[in-house]
């Protein structure tokens, strides 16, 4: 099957690529150099979070010319295509078709890379390649063993160049890697390998290799000391070919030369040939059977002082040996006995043995161990674990070849798993008896799942067929004649000495053997088909022993002519009849003559037959003449029998080969299935890392989308530059200042036109990128019609280092205009408030806090520190008004309304200041605020007060005047009878009073009236009557005196008009003079005339009463001096009449 598949699919080798953490980068590096056609198919297996869509396919597609597909299952492998594992599934390949698999293990324990490699190895055989790239853990390490085992090629990314070197280091640690290369060179390396191979005519080369295999085995045997000639031919050829491709050697002859001359290559080939897969508890069920059927009974049934001996040939890196050791230890612990167990673990690979002796394994392998054993017998370290010392002490690892070295003996259990499958039929047949020899009677043999004891059912009785567990049949140990592959006498001193227990028996055996070899006739034991089981004595006269063993070991085939015709029928007859049969007079033809012989065939009972040869006559030398005498009588029969034998033989080996191949395949499959487990623990770590990364990617996607939306929608003009001032990104709004296009990303900003005046922004950006602090400046557009505020900020990378700058531009043209407008308005308002002397305040009812400006503070007479609480302000308000103000404020707060009140504030100088306050609750303010103003209204208030006073005064005065007039009328009425005169007098008096009154300020100002004015007003009607002269200082009169004084002067003037100087008398003159000092006023009224004036009436008229009363009213005194030609009146008025200003 392998050959057929390989030929048909040889065109498209499949490269499995395992990657994990850091894998994307490595994959890019690896696949970017690909050039079509590569002729290869690629399958990428990664550790993916099952809950997330993977973007790997899209990401890779950009970097390579290869076609990149995410697998959906069912794809047939195609060249120049990269298939990528989908999340949530494993990947397998069957007959060149990719299949999705479901994970058996929980997350964290999955190892998809190993799974796929194993599937790839079995499906594509040598047509497979595996690549292990960056990643943590050890996934892929087990898988690559499978690839190698099947002849594939393994390439690993150079650990130093991998971002995470866990997986590469683990792979390299196996020693099975063909190439270690940086990611960029891997592809070329693989292409080269497959190119070389496909250019070889496969079959011809294979033949040629097969031709040289024997020679190679010889060279290896000479160099290494191990003989591989007994190994399966196909395996040998495959692995040798592989080495040749790896080295780029075309012909097997050249390779042979290389192996001859190059010890390292010998070693490499040796190692390649020994590749096998092993692990703890491989086939757990089989081990369970082993424990129940073998180990427990052995431990319980053995006397304490007797040693238990176990042999593990082909132990490789020791897992199997440790598994068995643990089972024994556990059984002893549970049975509570101290079992003395000695385990011999042997292999021919020293490198593997050293790994085994160390007893330290990757932590991933822990999963294979049952939890109870894991806890008890392992000590975990970070990435690895080691086996506890008591277990290690049970095992003795040694270099020993099952094929060439003498076997151990008296063994209770031989565990020889998955070793026989590498041996060809003949070697297997010789090894099984060896194991039979090594085991003590009743001992056990434990084989791999696809191995069997072959024909030796008589040596081993199956104990459990499915677990491949056998029990040695009783009987003396039959030491094989020659150790197959051994070049010397199979005598092992150690073995002999180890067998000291029955010396006499050994001597007896030796004696019998010696007797048989030297003294008995030559004899031969064959099986029922004529196959030689053992030979004794000198048989070369009867048989031809060819140099190679390839001719088979059939007694019929080997028999010399003459004997050959006899031996077949003899065998059949004896076998069928189960009796001794003798053939007499058999003439055996040798190269030198003929020998008459008697042949006896004796069935031995156990299925084998004994041939004994006895010469019945002397040897006759050959006569050349006889050559022509050859009788062809039996030719036909002979030929038929020959053919029958040959056919049977071929049939048998064909069946066996097929069975073996089938078993081998089954075992591989089982191995692969179970290998998953190892991968899981590694996957756990990776999954965790991956989860984190995934969630980070999610966040980034959201953030990115936010950012993109922001960039597209913001009004803010933002340009992000890198350290070299190249445009990294920008917002749409920025295109109005820098006409950027998407293609401008990456261009230096210096190359981009800008609509700004000057280039300070570039200098700023350069400075900030160089480490200067963020700057802000105003820049103008080229037209000067817009003003921008530009902030240049450092762009900080995640690490905090400055990696460029961000330019943020805001159009502040409108804002600036508004600012100017606001400033002007505010200035105007301030000016108005200042000019009006308005105090501005704010009040928070909740806390009682207040804010008062300077004017307000001055109005209340508080200093700034005091004007912070309403209580202080209240305290300054006049006690009488305080309650009203508080109530008004409270009302305003409660009703959310306005506040208006007038109150007094006592000033420091003792005066009172009247203040009017207005306020309003700021709508919707929380906490509630009242804002208001205070105005000083003292002057207005004073004015109103004065006016009221004045009105009252005027009212009083008018009423008083009415009273005076009415009194005057009443008094006049008592003395006058003539109504006309009475009315005339009264009218004149009232007119005089009116004139005097008009002197007083009509507005009622407390303005003094001058005496001169009063005199002039009183005398005004008479100025034309005579010479009137007035003289005196200006004296201001108290207004209260005005009416009385006016009446006095009026009466005097009336008198003068009637009887005196003003009556039209000749030379009449009136002189009124006055003086004023501290004591008062002295007024002199002097009338003179040329002639003596008329005599005034003797009776005292009402005028006199009026004058007297008025003078009394003024508290003055009056005197009259009458001379011949003059009439002099003098009036002294007290100081009270003079107005006090």
């Amino acid at each position, binding site marked *: 099957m392998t050959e057929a598949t390989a030929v048909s699919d040889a065109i498209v080798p499949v490269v499995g690529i395992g990657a994990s953490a850091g894998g994307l980068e490595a994959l890019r590096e690896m696949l970017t150099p690909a050039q079509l056609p590569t002729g290869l198919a690629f399958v990428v297996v990664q550790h993916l979070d099952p809950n997330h869509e993977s973007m790997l396919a899209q990401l890779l597609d950009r970097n390579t010319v290869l076609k990149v597909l995410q697998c959906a299952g069912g794809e047939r492998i195609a060249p120049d295509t990269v298939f990528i594992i989908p999340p949530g599934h494993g990947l397998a390949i069957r007959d060149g078709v990719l299949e999705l698999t479901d994970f058996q293990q929980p997350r964290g324990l999955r190892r998809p890379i190993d799974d796929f490699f194993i599937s790839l190895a079995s499906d594509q055989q040598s047509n497979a390649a595996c690549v292990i790239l960056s990643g943590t853990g050890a996934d892929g390490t087990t898988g690559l063993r499978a690839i190698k085992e099947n002849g594939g090629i393994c390439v690993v990314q150079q650990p130093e160049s991998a971002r995470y070197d866990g997986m590469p280091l683990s792979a390299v640690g196996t020693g099975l890697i063909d190439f270690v290369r940086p990611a960029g060179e891997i592809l070329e390396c693989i292409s080269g390998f497959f190119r070389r191979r496909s250019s070889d005519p496969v079959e011809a080369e294979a033949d040629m290799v097969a031709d040289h295999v024997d020679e190679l085995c010889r060279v290896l045997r000479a160099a290494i000391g191990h003989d591989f000639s007994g190994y399966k031919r196909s395996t040998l050829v495959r692995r040798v070919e592989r080495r040749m491709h790896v080295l780029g050697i075309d012909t097997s002859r050249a390779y042979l030369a290389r192996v001859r001359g190059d010890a390292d290559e010998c070693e490499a080939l040796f190692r390649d040939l020994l590749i096998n897969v092993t692990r703890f508890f491989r086939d757990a069920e089989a081990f369970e059977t082993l424990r129940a059927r073998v180990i427990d009974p052995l431990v319980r049934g053995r006397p304490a002082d007797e040693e238990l001996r176990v042999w593990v040939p082909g132990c490789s890196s020791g897992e199997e040996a440790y598994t068995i050791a643990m089972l024994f230890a556990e059984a002893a612990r549970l049975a509570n006995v101290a079992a003395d167990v000695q385990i011999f673990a042997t292999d021919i690979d020293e490198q593997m043995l050293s790994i085994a002796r160390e007893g330290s394994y990757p932590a991933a392998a822990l999963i294979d161990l049952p939890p109870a054993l894991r806890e008890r017998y392992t000590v975990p370290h970070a990435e690895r674990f080691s086996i506890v010392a008591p277990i290690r002490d049970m095992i003795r690892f040694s270099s020993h070849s099952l094929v060439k070295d003498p076997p151990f003996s008296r063994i209770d259990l031989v565990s020889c798993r998955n070793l026989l499958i590498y041996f060809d039929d003949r070697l297997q047949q010789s090894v099984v008896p060896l194991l039979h020899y090594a085991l003590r009677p009743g001992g056990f043999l434990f084989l791999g799942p696809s191995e069997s004891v072959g024909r030796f059912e008589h040596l081993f009785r199956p104990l459990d067929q499915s677990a491949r567990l056998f029990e040695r049949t009783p009987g003396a140990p039959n030491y094989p004649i020659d150790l197959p592959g051994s070049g010397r006498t199979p005598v092992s001193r150690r073995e002999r000495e180890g067998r000291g227990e029955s010396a006499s028996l050994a001597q007896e055996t030796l004696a019998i053997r010696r007797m048989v070899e030297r003294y008995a006739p030559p004899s031969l034991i064959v099986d029922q088909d004529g196959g030689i089981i053992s030979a004794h004595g000198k048989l070369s006269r009867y048989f031809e022993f060819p140099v190679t063993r390839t001719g088979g070991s059939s007694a019929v085939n080997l028999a010399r002519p003459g004997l050959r015709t006899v031996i077949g029928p003899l065998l059949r007859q004896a076998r069928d009849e189960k009796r001794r049969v003798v053939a007499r007079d058999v003439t055996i033809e040798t190269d030198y003559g003929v020998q008459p012989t008697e042949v006896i065939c004796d069935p031995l009972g156990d299925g084998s037959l004994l041939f004994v040869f006895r010469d019945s006559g002397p040897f006759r030398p050959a006569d050349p003449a006889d050559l022509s005498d050859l009788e062809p009588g039996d030719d036909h029969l002979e030929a038929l029998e020959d053919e029958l034998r040959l056919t049977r033989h071929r049939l048998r080996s064909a069946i066996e080969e097929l069975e073996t191949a089938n078993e081998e395949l089954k075992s591989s499959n089982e191995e692969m299935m179970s290998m998953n487990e190892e991968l899981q623990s590694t996957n756990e770590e990776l999954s965790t890392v991956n989860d984190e990364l995934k969630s980070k990617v999610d966040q980034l996607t959201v953030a990115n989308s936010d950012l993109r939306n922001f960039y597209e929608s913001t009004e803010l003009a933002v340009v992000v530059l890198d350290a070299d001032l190249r445009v990294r990104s920008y917002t749409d709004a920025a295109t109005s200042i820098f006409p950027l296009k998407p293609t401008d990303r990456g261009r230096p900003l210096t190359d981009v036109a800008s609509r700004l005046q000057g280039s300070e922004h570039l200098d700023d950006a350069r400075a900030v990128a160089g480490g200067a602090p963020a700057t802000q400046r105003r820049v103008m557009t080229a037209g000067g019609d817009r003003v921008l505020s530009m902030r240049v900020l450092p762009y900080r990378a995640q690490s905090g280092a400055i990696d460029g700058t961000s330019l943020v531009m805001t159009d502040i043209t409108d804002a600036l205009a508004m600012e100017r407008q606001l400033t002007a308005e505010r200035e105007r308002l301030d000016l108005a408030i200042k000019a009006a002397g308005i105090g501005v305040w704010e009040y928070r009812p909740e806390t009682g806090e207040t804010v008062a400006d300077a004017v307000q503070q001055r109005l209340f007479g508080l200093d700034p520190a005091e004007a912070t609480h309403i209580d202080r302000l209240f305290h300054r308000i006049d006690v009488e008004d305080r309650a009203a103000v508080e109530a008004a404020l409270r009302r305003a707060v409660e009703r959310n309304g306005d506040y208006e009140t007038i109150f007094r504030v006592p000033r420091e100088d003792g005066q009172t200041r009247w203040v009017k306050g207005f306020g309003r609750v700021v709508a919707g303010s929380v906490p509630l605020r009242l804002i208001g103003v205070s105005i000083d209204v003292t002057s207005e208030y004073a004015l109103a007060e004065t006016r009221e006073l004045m009105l009252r005064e005027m009212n009083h005065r008018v009423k008083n005047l009415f*009273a*005076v007039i009415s009194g005057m009328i009443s008094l006049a009425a008592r003395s006058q009878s003539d109504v006309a005169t009475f009315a005339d007098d009264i009218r004149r008096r009232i007119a005089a009073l009116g004139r005097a009154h008009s002197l007083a300020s009509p507005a009622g100002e407390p303005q003094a009236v001058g005496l001169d004015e009063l005199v002039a007003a009183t005398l005004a009607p008479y100025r034309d009557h005579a010479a009137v002269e007035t003289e005196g200082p200006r004296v201001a009169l108290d207004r*209260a005196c005005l009416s009385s004084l006016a009446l006095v002067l009026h009466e005097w003037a009336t008198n003068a008009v009637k009887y005196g100087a003003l009556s039209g008398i000749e030379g009449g003159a009136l002189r009124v003079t006055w003086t004023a000092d501290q004591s008062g006023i002295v007024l002199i009224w002097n009338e003179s005339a040329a002639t003596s004036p008329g005599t005034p009436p003797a009776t005292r008229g009402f005028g006199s009463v009026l004058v007297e*009363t008025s003078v009394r009213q003024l508290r003055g005194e009056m005197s009259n001096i009458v001379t011949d030609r003059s009439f002099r009146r003098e009036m002294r008025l007290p100081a009270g009449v003079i107005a006090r200003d």
Partner: protein
Amino acid sequence: MTDLVLLVEDELLIALDLQGTIEDAGFRVEGPCTTLSEAQEAIDRHGARFAAALLDVRLADDTVFPAADRLHAAGVPLLFHSGHADDADLRRRYPLAMVCPKPSAPDTLSAALLRCVQMTRVG
């Protein structure tokens, strides 16, 4: 029982008129007093025994109230004759006093004076 009426009025012209009116009503006049001190002296002189008192409220030096208080205490009926003092104030201070606004007709005054005196006598 006396028929003496105390007249306090700082405006002499009015005082003379009032004096006439009082005398016409059949009383004698003490005064007219033009100042508070004069009024006090007159009260002292007569031991506050008056049939009634006709008082102007505002005098040159002061208000008439100190004198009015004494008279009120002595049970002299008071008749105020004022141009400016408001009624309410007077009525509060002297609930029983009568008030005639200035100027008043002589009839009104004499009628008021008589009623004053009678009220006292009846009371």
